[in-house]
């Protein structure tokens, strides 16, 4: 929890009302975003994203597994976020656990789409190897290194960057296995398949402070919020998921207004993120 004096609270609220925030930004200006890929050599793909003082790491690990009985032609993806107490003392114990589940559920909702798999940012059928027998299990893990507000957007961006950094080994299935036998597979350690991330949405959180809402709030600004709406938008401008935080109610017209604002912001965000990812990948190749 951020402890603020009454004066500081007025300063934040008044600044937002006048469209000039404490760090000189306007209400709908996000902080600059920095992306670094390939930061963890142990995983199949990883990325570090920094927005102001908020810093998160996402890692993608692929393991061979068995598809579920309900969807034999699809792989499995699990998303988990860890809020380490090293980032903030409040993350210790139950507080961190609650935030972790909240972020994990929100990310799952935003990235995995509906139960039938439509609208998912990650194409699960591309993870299948042998129908009903072998598939890839993707373990996407996020870590909050340093927290200064807007964790969900940063984690969403980091996962998108990590996925585009992910190489999934090519698998050769030995022919001849029939019936119930588990086919033998040969995992190549030289050939990697690039993951298609064009459909992965970005997350835009609009935080309502007073009568206005702001994008990319810092933790001081978040402490003054009445409610926040996180909207994930894909490249086509469609909504892929929406979560509301904070207790205060919102008028339905305000929510629709927020959705349209999020759509226009997401367009810029996708473009900046793409160029940042491309730059990070190029930088990694050189070194």
């Amino acid at each position: 929890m951020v402890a603020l004096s009454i004066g500081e609270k007025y300063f934040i609220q008044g600044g937002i009302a006048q469209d000039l925030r404490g760090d000189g930004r306007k209400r709908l200006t996000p902080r600059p975003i920095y992306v670094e890929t390939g930061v963890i050599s142990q995983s199949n793909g990883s990325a570090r994203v920094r927005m102001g003082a908020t810093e998160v790491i996402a890692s993608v690990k692929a393991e061979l597994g068995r598809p579920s009985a309900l969807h034999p032609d699809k792989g499995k993806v699990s998303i988990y976020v860890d809020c380490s107490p090293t980032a903030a003392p409040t993350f210790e114990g139950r507080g961190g656990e609650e935030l972790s589940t909240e972020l994990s559920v929100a990310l799952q909702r935003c990235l995995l789409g509906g139960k039938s798999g439509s609208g998912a940012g990650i194409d699960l059928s591309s993870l299948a190897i042998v129908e009903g027998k072998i598939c890839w299990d993707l373990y996407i893990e996020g870590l909050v290194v340093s927290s200064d507000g807007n964790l969900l957007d940063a984690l969403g961006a980091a996962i998108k960057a990590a996925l585009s950094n992910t190489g999934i080994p090519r698998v050769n299935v030995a022919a001849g296995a029939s019936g119930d036998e588990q086919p033998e597979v040969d995992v190549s350690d030289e050939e990697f398949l690039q993951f298609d991330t064009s459909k992965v949405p970005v997350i835009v959180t609009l935080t309502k402070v007073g009568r206005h809402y702001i994008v990319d709030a810092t933790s001081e600004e978040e402490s003054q919020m009445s409610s926040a709406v996180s909207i994930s938008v894909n490249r086509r401008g469609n909504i892929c998921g929406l979560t509301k935080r904070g207790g205060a109610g919102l008028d339905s017209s305000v929510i629709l207004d927020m959705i349209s604002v999020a759509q226009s912001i997401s367009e810029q965000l996708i473009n900046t993120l793409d160029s940042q990812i491309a730059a990070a990948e190029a930088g990694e190749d050189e070194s």
Partner: protein
Amino acid sequence: MAGQAGGTPSTYSPSPTTRKTKSLILRNDDVDWVRTDGREFHQCRPAFFKTGAVNAAAGSAYAEFGNTKVIVSVFGPRESKKAMMYSDIGRLNCNVSYTTFATSVRGQGSDHKEFSSMLHKALEGAIILESFPKTTVDVFALVLESGGSDLPVVISCASLALADAGIMMYDLVASVSVSCLGKNLVIDPVLEEESYQDGSLMLTCMPSRYEVTQLTITGEWSTPKINEGMQICLDACAKLATIMRECLKGPDSALEE
């Protein structure tokens, strides 16, 4: 949409719990399919509410929407635990759990952490927490049988239980979800429809104040579709709230007679 209202809103004719067989696959382009329980797309299941289901609780409610059966009890306001910091507003503690026999596979997920936090978020905006400082209100929800749209039923039932316990609220909270199946929007989906859905939208609101306290969307939605889905949910919530209000009035009006 007035499905649950019908002629006499607060009565409920028990439908035989038939053992469901795997129905035909709901194909995306197929517009003419019929819902398994014969409802129209924009028709809710008949709703049944009853307050005072648990004697030991300060307030409680039982809700039955088709096969979804939920019981919620509210305890408190009572003194917050000693370890908790002083707070000049009340605390709300929510817990949603499933019985081991609630789902077709035994003992799956007895504790739903994300449901608990969703219930908390849906209710906290409606409760006047300033009215009971230094104390905690516990809301315990138990899903006896899961038949689809569990969370919306839990939320509506919990707000009724809170009202039964005499906790001050701005308004009753009603919640409804819609599933997106292909081109169609299907309100109040059953378990089977939920497992085939392309996307879902759950809306929780305070109908008299026309305020949305919680909204979650999964799957890919275009803006006009979200518009449509929200409108359907808001209408249904308003109707659900009248049924809930009838239920609260029920015993008193009976006494007057």
